[in-house]
């Protein structure tokens, strides 16, 4: 991706440096994202996200973390009015896990091994603001 400009500011919550490296490289190459931050545990991620709720447009969350979990990140930021959409990227994208993540506010759930393409097209879609449908009502004001 050589285009500059409308890259979507993305924050990644992922405990493995190796997956982080690959994910960042893949996204950088194929999707219009700019990785503005990364955290390896729930507490740090929540702290970063709540510090400036407008700081990023996309949050990619792994479920199993160094400490805490991606579900905790979702739970603790759900009502903070984050500008960014939260999506979950996990190796355990079972129907139960998908339902759980969605109920906690995840916009989408992607399987780490099989749905990276979907994540990339999701990012591409996000970067085209005019086509994005209006956000469902129920904006939360804190």
């Amino acid at each position: 991706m050589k285009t500059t400009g409308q890259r979507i500011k993305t924050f990644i919550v992922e405990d493995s440096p190796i997956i982080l490296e690959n994910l960042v490289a893949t996204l950088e190459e194929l999707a219009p994202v700019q990785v503005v931050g990364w955290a390896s545990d729930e507490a740090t991620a929540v702290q970063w996200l709540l510090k400036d709720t407008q700081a990023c447009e996309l949050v990619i969350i792994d479920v199993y973390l160094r400490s805490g979990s991606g579900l905790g990140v979702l739970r603790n930021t759900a009502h903070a009015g984050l500008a960014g959409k939260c999506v979950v990227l996990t190796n355990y994208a079972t129907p139960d896990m998908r339902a759980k993540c969605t109920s906690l506010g995840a916009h989408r759930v992607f399987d780490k091994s099989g749905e990276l393409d979907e994540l990339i097209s999701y990012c591409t879609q996000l970067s085209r603001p005019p086509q994005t449908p209006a956000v469902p009502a129920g904006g939360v004001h804190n």
Partner: protein
Amino acid sequence: MQVHTKLTLATLATLALLGACNRNDEGRTVGQQVDGAVAKVENQAERAKDATTSAANQVGDKAKDMGITAAINAELARDPKLSALSINVDTVDGRVTLKGTAPDTASRDRATSLAGAVSGVLAVDNQLNVTPGG
């Protein structure tokens, strides 16, 4: 007369009792004093040890953060495009903030994973700006 004797006896008995108590008390007090002193010294030693440990931990944390910063700077210097000179690395409790410039978007994003791969790093806040040729 009888009343008087009784009173005297009672007084004597009381005095004797008090004396016994006193002696007992004194005996215990010495023991207690020793015990107390020992406990106090032990307490103080324990507290001193705690203070030392916490001070050492703080120094250790600082040193750890400095080590992380140094390691990231070394990684940046080794990178063909990123420059340790144009990037300011700040580490607090394993949380890294990158400020400065990167020559292109790929390098900017690479800085995140490069810093994240350094052992002990918990989070990276990438505030790098892309400045071609910078």
